[in-house]
């Protein structure tokens, strides 16, 4: 019945190979898009920069994005900026910090008990940083996936908890998710903060240890969103809602069918990785917590404005946002729980009331 009203039925949606693109991939592979009358092609992109630029100029209709990316694009602080909109969160949590074996071994030599704790106390790392400085060694380098990301903020927060400051004590660089394992293997990176399954894969390849998960720093935080430009949303309101409806159904399916989700995601045209590594973060194997990543419950798909504000506060704190930016207005125009509510209601999904908005 929805078909007749759709402004556009053939769509190309972008994703970066990560476990949290699952709702998009599953909506395509398990027919949730087709059921809404949509013919969707999933385009695997090699970087967040590529996703951002292609969505901004309309080469992609919409995409899997780091939650703060549409905020940065709308604030005009990202190189290619246009007003963006998200009516749906794709996932909560799902990122890990992996330390290279060589660094972990040195920590274990200082204090074997503390090195085995998770989260690993950053104060232990500080002892290593201080020892390195006295010996005149090069500072350790850590990698995040993007300047504007939960990964960057979690890494900084964890390092800060041990009195370690980026730039003063350690370096921070950007490495795209699919290259994290190779960089750990090359030995020039001490630790990486990346979305799964890249941490699980590094562990399985014997390259490092997961010492911290997103749940240790900010449990229940919106990690990825499905975003479109505001212009696209305004030109295709029914199509947009149909995509959101399909994604809600797919996200619920992902939570209920995690082993099968892993099997589908591992396929060559999607993540192209061993199924075991993809399954580990979804099923809580390899000592990863079972609730590391959530796709639908509890109210995981709501693009909460409080979460947008949390990201905007971090951006402001680290000088990524001009001081005069109206953060509340930005949060309200970009994160659109009202669109989620409309789509969820059509799908018969219970929607939490406004006043239950969670603060991270």
């Amino acid at each position: 019945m929805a078909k007749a009203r759709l402004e556009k039925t053939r769509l190309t949606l972008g994703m970066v190979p990560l476990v949290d693109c699952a709702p998009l991939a599953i909506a395509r592979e398990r027919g949730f898009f087709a059921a809404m009358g949509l013919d969707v092609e999933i385009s695997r992109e090699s970087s967040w920069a590529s996703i951002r630029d292609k969505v901004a100029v309309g080469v992609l209709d919409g995409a899997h994005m780091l939650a703060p990316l549409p905020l940065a694009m709308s604030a005009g602080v990202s190189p290619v900026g246009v007003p963006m909109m998200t009516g749906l969160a794709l996932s909560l949590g799902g990122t890990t910090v992996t330390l290279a074996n060589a660094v972990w071994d040195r920590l274990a030599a200082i204090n074997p008990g503390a090195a085995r704790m998770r989260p690993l106390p950053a104060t232990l790392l500080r002892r290593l940083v201080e020892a390195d400085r006295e010996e005149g060694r090069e500072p350790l380098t850590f990698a995040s996936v993007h300047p504007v990301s939960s990964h960057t903020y979690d890494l900084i927060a964890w390092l800060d908890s041990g009195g370690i400051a980026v730039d003063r004590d350690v370096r921070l660089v950007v490495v795209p998710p699919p290259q994290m394992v190779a960089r750990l293997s090359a030995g020039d990176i001490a630790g990486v903060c990346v979305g799964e399954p890249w941490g699980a894969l590094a562990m399985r390849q014997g390259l490092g240890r997961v010492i911290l998960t997103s749940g240790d720093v900010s449990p229940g935080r919106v990690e990825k969103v499905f975003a479109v430009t505001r212009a696209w949303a305004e030109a295709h309101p029914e199509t947009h809602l149909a995509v959101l409806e399909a994604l809600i159904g797919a996200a619920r399916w992902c939570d209920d069918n995690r082993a099968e989700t892993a099997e589908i995601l591992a396929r060559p045209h999607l993540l192209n990785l061993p199924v075991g590594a993809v399954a580990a973060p979804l099923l809580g194997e390899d000592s990863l917590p079972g609730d590391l990543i959530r796709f639908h419950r509890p109210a995981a798909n709501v693009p909460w404005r409080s979460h947008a504000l949390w990201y905007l506060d971090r951006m402001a704190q680290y000088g990524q946002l001009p001081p005069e930016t109206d953060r509340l207005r930005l949060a309200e125009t970009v994160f659109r729980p009202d669109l989620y509510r409309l789509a969820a209601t059509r799908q018969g999904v219970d929607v939490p009331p406004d006043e239950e908005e969670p603060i991270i």
Partner: protein
Amino acid sequence: MSLRVIVVDDERERAALVTQALTANGFQVVAVLGAGACPAHRVTELAADVIIVDIDSPDRDMLEDMRRVTFDCGRPVVMFAQDGNPETIRAAVEAGVSAYVVDGLKPERVKPVVDVAIARFRQFQELRSELGRTKATLAERKLVEKAKGILMRQRGCGEEEAYRLMRKMAMDRKVRLADIANRIIEAAQLLG
């Protein structure tokens, strides 16, 4: 002084096209790198002003401006977009080009470099689709020849008659001649 350019592209023929055109326009290409070569680290070393990067290169995220958060790179690079006009950006993305410049460089100095890259990326795209079409045509011609041979043997007819039969069948069924050829070949294989 002429701008110093780094080209990051895994597609070697395209990189060569771009390099040649940039040189002809008076720019200096100081390095051509493949993916994973960490161009950010080479910027200072090579005293580069502009980096032309394939839009699908995974290295792009490494070039993104970390602003005050970090990135201790001697010459901070920013994507060439903020000062460029929207049409240039759209044309660049559609052609598959992204460009990074050392912070502070005037847009009017950079734009000619980006324009050359866009033109060459487009040219390469056209060459490649042209090559694809030529290959497809040749493959189809081979199929038609093979099917014609099968028909001539089966029906004991001449070449022209076989061709006429196939064309009529294609027109009646509103499919392409190559599709009819394919069906004839498949049927012949099935019947041995």
